[in-house]
């Protein structure tokens, strides 16, 4: 669809341009702002891929927290204006990155993906994804050709069900990791002897 393409390419330009900016701009503060822009653009991609919840989480955590932390970090260290300089590995790094990019692009383009659309399942899965974070309207789900059992499983909560159902162990592990990171960050930032 035409409109969709426009939005997509606009987001793509913002994301990639911003990413290049993050890496290339000398001013670290601007790099951090550009990073936030990239995050917002990626959030836009999530919206386009029916992952609204993830998009919101992306904005909330990446833009609201991580980018702010970066700005804090930038401000508390030196050389903000001219700080982002390349090191000696510039050329090999560029080489490796370009090679890796080529390999990945080649793989992405030439692989014959088994897509949901190819299986005729696209609309159902989209409904599932869109509705996964709220209480879905059962009648609209049923209208899209889903079975009663599937409606039931989606109405059960989708993403939340997966997070504290099938993936509860990694979920708990990640909580523990966060706790450890919080304590570790405190310990590191406090420094010795204080």
């Amino acid at each position, binding site marked *: 669809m035409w409109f969709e393409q426009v939005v997509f390419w606009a987001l793509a330009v913002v994301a990639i341009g911003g990413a290049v900016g993050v890496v290339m701009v000398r001013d670290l503060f601007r790099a951090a702002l550009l990073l936030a822009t990239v995050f917002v653009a990626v959030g836009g991609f999530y919206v386009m891929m029916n992952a609204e919840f993830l998009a919101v989480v992306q904005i909330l955590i990446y833009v609201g927290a991580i980018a702010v932390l970066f700005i804090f970090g930038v401000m508390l260290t030196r050389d903000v204006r001219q700080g982002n300089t390349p090191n000696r*590995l510039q050329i090999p*790094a560029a080489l490796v*990155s370009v090679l*890796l990019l080529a*390999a*990945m692009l080649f*793989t992405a383009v030439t692989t014959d993906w088994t897509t949901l659309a190819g299986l005729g399942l696209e609309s159902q899965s989209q409904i599932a994804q869109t509705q996964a974070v709220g209480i879905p309207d059962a009648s609209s789900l049923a209208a899209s050709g889903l079975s009663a059992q599937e409606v039931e499983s989606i109405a059960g909560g989708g993403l939340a069900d997966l997070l504290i159902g099938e993936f509860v162990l990694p979920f708990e592990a990640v909580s523990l990791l966060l706790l450890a990171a919080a304590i570790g960050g405190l310990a590191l930032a406090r420094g010795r002897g204080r």
Partner: protein
Amino acid sequence: MLTEPLVWAIFLLPVASFLLIGVVVRPLGPSMAKAAGYLTILALGIGFVLSLWLLRSSAHGVVYDFVPHLWLNLAPGASIQMGLLLDPLTNVMLVVVTGVSLMVQIYSMAYMDGDESFARYYAYMSLFSASMIGLVLASNIVQMYAFWELVGLSSYLLIGFWHERPSAAAAAKKAFIITRIGDVGFLLAIIFLFFRADEFAAQGLNALHIPDIWQAAAPLAAGGAGIVAGGALLWLCLGLFAGAAGKSGQFPLHTWLPDAMEGPTPVSALIHAATMVAAGVFLVGRFFPVFSESEGAMMVVALIGAFTAVFAATMGLAANDIKRVMAYSTVSQLGYMMAALGIGAYNAALFHLFTHAFFKALLFLGAGSVNHSAGTFNMMYMGGLRKAMPFTYWLTVIGALSLVGIFPLAGFWSKDEILLEAWLGTGAVPTTVSLLVFLMLLAGVLLTAFYSFRMVHLTFHGEFRGGGEQELHDCEEAGQPAPTGVSHHVHLGESPWFMVGPMVFLGVSAVVAGWIANPIGVKSIFGLIPSHWLTEYFASGLYDGHHAPPFSIAMAVISNVVALAGIGLAVLTYMWPRPFTNNDPLTKGGVVHTLLAQRYYLDHLYEGLIVGRVFYRIVAAITDWVDRNIVDGIVGLVGWISRNIGGLIALAQNGQVQTYPLVAAAGGVVIIVLYLILG
């Protein structure tokens, strides 16, 4: 009727108290240390009540047969299980272990008071009690072996409890190593059984399950499986007996037990008198159906036991340390039990184990009480304590009389039964052997009586000879280090009630415990205890229960006369007409006394000849050469190679963090490209 969890609780409560003390109480510091004691006492108290309940319900005919929990299936016919084997032997042992242990823990509350490692002491004690209970409960030989070794470990920890003293550390090491020599035999026996597992499997038995082993040893004619017989059976029994001999201090592995007196006195009372050393007897008793199928093994057990009984008693004559006298006495009494087992007097042996636990623990606690006031263990510096500590005196006398076997105390009944069976013979060994055993044991009675009352006289009668203060002074003059347990802390007086209370309990037990067996064979006592109750109860656990012979007045008279003769000799030597002053009249024995005092030079033999000559000179020299030239050479070569390779690789470690992901990413590129090309 107890449920399975309740039975397990007897074992698990001390485990829990061990863990609680180790993890919670000890880190809280010395201010909370008392809690450790109360925890242990609580755990063991509940265990004691449960054990009594178990014994009672079992005596009323309840049969406990819990299905063991499978832990590991090694091979067909060899699976390691965690199970409960609740036969009469176990039930009685449980009562003994928890009861004596409980008394000792209460006693220790006062005895160990103020020790800076109070909580650690109770942690070890809990561990020991737990492992001893586990050993008694085990239904699987591997399970049993695990607890057997745990018992050894906790004994090691407790002997070396005051590990800052070199002598205690050395004693702990010695005990550990010497018992380990015996345990090798036990382990070999287990391995032997394991290798015969397929034959067991063919009969639908489990080679590691104890009742199955009994059945395997029984000949086909007697309805058994007849898997092990003849020479194999003899070696199996000897292996088990080696383990038993190590733990029970039988000749020639007895030398660790007197040294083990370096530990705190309650430890000696619990571990080296009442429970752990009895584990050897328990082991032989546990496998008695196996032993009884092999006459050769029975003869070995009987003769070694009888010999140990006399041999240790002779050494007891010349010892001056009160705890060492007790230790030799313990070895001697264990010899009685072994001898009794050897001649087939199963129930008499275990009866003696039962009574011995009480009076020997009593004697040890008495020794501890004496030390508490006199500040020393050396009898040469005691004397005259009778007036200062009347309770201790009378309780010790009761214990000693019981030990000697004077009518009607507990020791009399059990010892008398052993003598009687040895005299009559049970058919398990040739009559000549059992007669020889009888004579040796009778000689043992005389010696026991003599050294026991020598101990009583030296300790309690005559004039006070200065106690720990004097001994320290003498040691200083002679330029020797002071032995364990000596302190300036001399205050003549009765010990606190925390110590006397348990002793009173044990003293009462030492008087009445024999009656539980109702050995005279009256119809019943107070309508409660039927004729020959305990011995018959023991016998009920065996396939072909051996029944106690009827009480013989003649034998009672003989043993009492011999015992009284021994006591009389001691009185003549040490008290009357001339009371003992400073010189032990036994030193006039010259060479013999020196031999006894030097413990037949066995320690010298072990340490000087075997360890010093054979091990240091020959074995160590060879292994040293091998280690130096071959092992070190290989290690050195490997080290050299890796050092040089490492030097090369280290060049890549330039500390630039970004080079590492760069190389990793390059590797990723290579892998993807290879995959695209090849795959």
